[in-house]
């Protein structure tokens, strides 16, 4: 297969040249702007094509690395000379907190970085026999297989030493039960995670793994989660793992390189870089093949309260971020351990935070946790020692912004490319001020939207700040809203004319100053209004560009892209919800529930259920076809109806407008086009209904149309 690279960027990073190749997305392919899939099988061919392309076009340049981007997705990045750096592409993660639905959601946030997940399906009875947990769900297994992800449950004794010993004593029966269950439920193997047994159990432990290897089909995995052993201890828990012998039977050993500090210990990092480094060295020195070593990375931290007798309870990285946003504080990166430490003070009367079921009282907390910097440092060791890859405990505790970099970190340790989804939430570092709030008392006629927009907040922000679980509010209810000090300043934006999408009055959208820096290098030749519209939609996470640095403004927008943009807008603002059966019900014939572009799958269901998109006569969506201008007018008309209760046509019913070529439009679209003109969404005399819509013009149309897409305040 030959790949087409439609544009090339040359970048200099740390004095080395990197080539960024932008792939043309095939018309008949699911549009990758909105996808997050990563197909490892095709990567080798892709790399070879890329190398040939670069050698042909830049024969004299000394190029350090190549990055390949399709749409917004970083497909891969790798060194030009293979010998320059090690590349790892194995990542597994444990699933422990949640259920099938939340697990799927957590996996889908990883942007295709995972090859394997390990759910908590295998527990133990007191006699050491296998106990299948209530989490075991064939639907989840199928969903993961559809994504090309293996499902290897972990066998856990939950730190119960006696239970672990019961399992080892019963290992012959237990191994048979596990093998039968793996076949019965179409699982892909087992990871043995019996912890807290000791050196007296060492031989039996190895024998359990040997038995599992013997009883499981050859294509099923047996792996072992082993205690990190940076100090070479031979007794206690650490002595229960005979690394070398275990590796003879196991596909790999997953080193649990965390809990250096633990509940009850003195304050410190969960996994300092030295601790992790020495843990890998120990495995290698024991004679374990490097391609059988997987580095476990924590997605959590531990906290200690000043003045408390003890501390070190666990806290997820996401909770740390939430607390920093809520209370403010400082985050200092400790260079010695390569670990971040947050210091947060909760004052008396502050809103409470619950961690692990415990309400944190007033006081100052020291939290050692993990952020992108510390995880990146750990992943450098994967390359330093050329080991197989990473594991992580546990999925869902991480800051999701990490996944946009993960693939790059895993690809090599050299030059790195910009994140592919810069709009994902970023981390907080340095000194962070809490969101300043003030009180607002709900009045008759108020809605969440009205309160949120008045205070320059999104509805979801408002709900989160007030811990609202529904959209219902009551007159007299006191809500927290952002204080004016923390509200962005707004200023009117100049409007200007362009040939195709003519000027309109400035809208609520265009009046908001874009807070983010312009990431797109290819929009500077467009009018200030068009640029502002693009950046405002980008800021609102409605559009993401075709790469980290390009918007492709002149490209015709596809039906699939419109579905996703409108879907994001509708969902983010709470105007419509994604149907609960979006992963099981066929909303469009050509968007099967097995589709790997989950964002398209999700929003196709939303726009169909909400009546915004009806699809073609044959029941298809045809997402890769370009949308016509009349088609765009129709869906925006319906979207407005969904949000405000009135369509554009109904809003414009008393206004006159003339469109010269209206008769060339389909009968169904004529009223919507006339409304476009009457409401100033367009002011051209000829609408050209059958023409395509460029991405830049769609951004302008959408930005202008959004002034009518507000909930009806009379309801």
């Amino acid at each position, binding site marked *: 297969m030959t790949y087409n690279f439609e544009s090339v960027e040359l970048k200099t990073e740390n004095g080395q040249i990197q080539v960024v190749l932008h792939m043309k997305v095939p018309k008949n392919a699911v549009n990758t702007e909105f996808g997050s899939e990563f197909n490892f099988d095709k990567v080798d061919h892709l790399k070879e094509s890329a190398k040939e392309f670069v050698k042909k076009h830049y024969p004299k340049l000394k190029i350090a690395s190549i990055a390949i981007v399709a749409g917004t997705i970083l497909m891969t990045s790798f060194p030009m000379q293979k010998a320059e750096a090690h590349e790892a592409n194995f990542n597994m993660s444990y699933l422990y907190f949640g259920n099938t639905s939340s697990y799927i959601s957590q996996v889908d946030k990883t942007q295709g970085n995972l090859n394997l997940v390990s759910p908590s399906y295998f527990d133990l*009875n*007191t*006699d*050491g*026999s296998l*106990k299948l947990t209530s989490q075991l769900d064939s639907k989840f297994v199928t969903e993961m297989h559809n994504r090309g992800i293996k499902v290897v449950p972990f066998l856990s004794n939950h730190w119960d*030493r*006696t239970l672990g*010993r*019961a399992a*080892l*004593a019963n290992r012959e029966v237990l191994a048979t039960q596990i093998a039968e269950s793996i076949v019965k439920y179409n699982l892909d193997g087992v990871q043995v995670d019996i*912890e*807290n047994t*000791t*050196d*007296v159990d060492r031989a039996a432990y190895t024998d359990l793994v040997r038995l599992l290897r013997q009883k499981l089909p050859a294509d099923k995995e047996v792996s072992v989660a082993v*205690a990190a052993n940076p100090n070479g*201890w031979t*007794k*206690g*828990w*650490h*002595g229960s793992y005979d690394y070398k012998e275990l590796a003879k039977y196991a596909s790999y050993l997953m080193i649990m390189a965390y*809990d250096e500090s*633990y*509940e*009850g*210990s003195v304050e410190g990092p969960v996994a300092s870089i030295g601790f992790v480094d020495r843990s890998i060295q120990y495995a290698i020195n024991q004679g374990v093949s490097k391609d059988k070593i997987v580095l476990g990375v924590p997605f959590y931290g531990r906290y200690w309260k000043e003045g408390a007798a003890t501390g070190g309870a666990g806290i997820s990285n996401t909770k740390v971020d939430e607390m920093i946003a809520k209370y403010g504080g400082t985050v200092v990166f400790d260079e010695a351990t390569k670990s971040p430490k947050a210091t947060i003070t909760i004052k008396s009367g502050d809103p409470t935070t619950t961690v692990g079921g415990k309400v944190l009282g007033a006081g100052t907390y020291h939290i050692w946790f993990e952020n992108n910097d510390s995880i990146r440092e750990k992943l450098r060791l994967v390359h330093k020692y050329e080991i197989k890859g990473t594991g992580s405990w546990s999925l869902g505790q991480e800051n999701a912004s990490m996944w946009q970099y993960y693939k790059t970190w895993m690809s090599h340790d050299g030059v790195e490319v910009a994140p592919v989804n810069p709009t994902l939430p970023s981390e907080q570092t340095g000194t962070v001020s809490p969101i300043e709030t003030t009180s607002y008392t709900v009045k008759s006629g108020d809605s969440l939207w009205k309160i949120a927009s008045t205070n320059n907040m999104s509805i979801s922000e408002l709900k989160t700040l007030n811990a609202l679980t529904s959209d219902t509010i009551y007159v007299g209810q006191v809500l927290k809203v952002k204080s004016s000090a923390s509200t962005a300043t707004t200023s009117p934006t100049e409007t200007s004319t362009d040939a195709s999408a003519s000027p309109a009055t400035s809208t609520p959208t265009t009046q908001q100053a874009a807070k983010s820096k312009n990431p797109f290098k290819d929009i500077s030749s467009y009018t200030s209004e068009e640029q502002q519209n693009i950046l405002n939609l980008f800021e609102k996470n409605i559009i993401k560009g075709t790469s980290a640095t390009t918007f492709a403004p002149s490209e015709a927008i596809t039906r699939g892209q419109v579905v996703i943009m409108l879907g994001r807008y509708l969902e983010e603002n709470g105007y419509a919800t994604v149907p609960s059966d979006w992963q099981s019900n066929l909303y469009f014939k050509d968007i099967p529930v097995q589709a790997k572009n989950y964002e398209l799958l999700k929003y196709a269901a939303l726009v169909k259920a909400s009546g915004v998109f009806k699809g073609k006569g044959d029941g298809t969506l045809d997402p890769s076809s370009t949308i016509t201008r009349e088609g765009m007018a129709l869906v925006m008309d319906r979207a407005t109806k969904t949000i405000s209760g009135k369509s554009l046509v109904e809003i414009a019913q008393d206004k006159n407008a003339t469109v010269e070529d209206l008769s060339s439009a389909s009968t169904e679209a004529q009223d919507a086009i006339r409304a476009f003109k009457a409401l100033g969404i367009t002011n051209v005399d000829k609408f050209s209904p059958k023409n395509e819509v460029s991405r830049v013009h769609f951004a302008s149309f959408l930005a202008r149309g959004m002034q009518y897409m507000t909930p009806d305040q009379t309801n």
Partner: protein
Amino acid sequence: MKKIMTSFFTLVFLFSMQIPSLAAEDRPTIPYYGVGATVQEVVEGEYLVKTEGAKAEEGFVYTPPEPFKEKNIKFQITLKGKGNVILKLEETNARGQYIKEKKMDVTLTEDWATYEMTFTLESPTSQIDAFVLSKDKEPAEFSFKNIEIIEE
């Protein structure tokens, strides 16, 4: 005859119901695990340990299930048999890291005799393994009952 057959089928039914219930997780589990040895309950509360003799220090291990409140503890056990065994307490911290151990040699007798060994934990959060192990590299048999870890 019909009554006899009915009783027979009832017995068969009850018997068939008993087997899975015995095999399920409700079955009482002996919390003593062999270390190069088998542990068998010969009468209620009395256990027989037979070591393989492949090496010295074979026997059984017991881990008290409840966390400690105090640092000072006492290992108490009643034993009978022949030859010499070792009583051993091994402390690991809350994260399983080995801390220290203490051993005591015991010469067994043919009659039951109770033995005690005191121990000071580094921390009440620690875990303890209590062992009775053979002293020499040879097959051994001994019996035990009334094992206790007492907080003082």
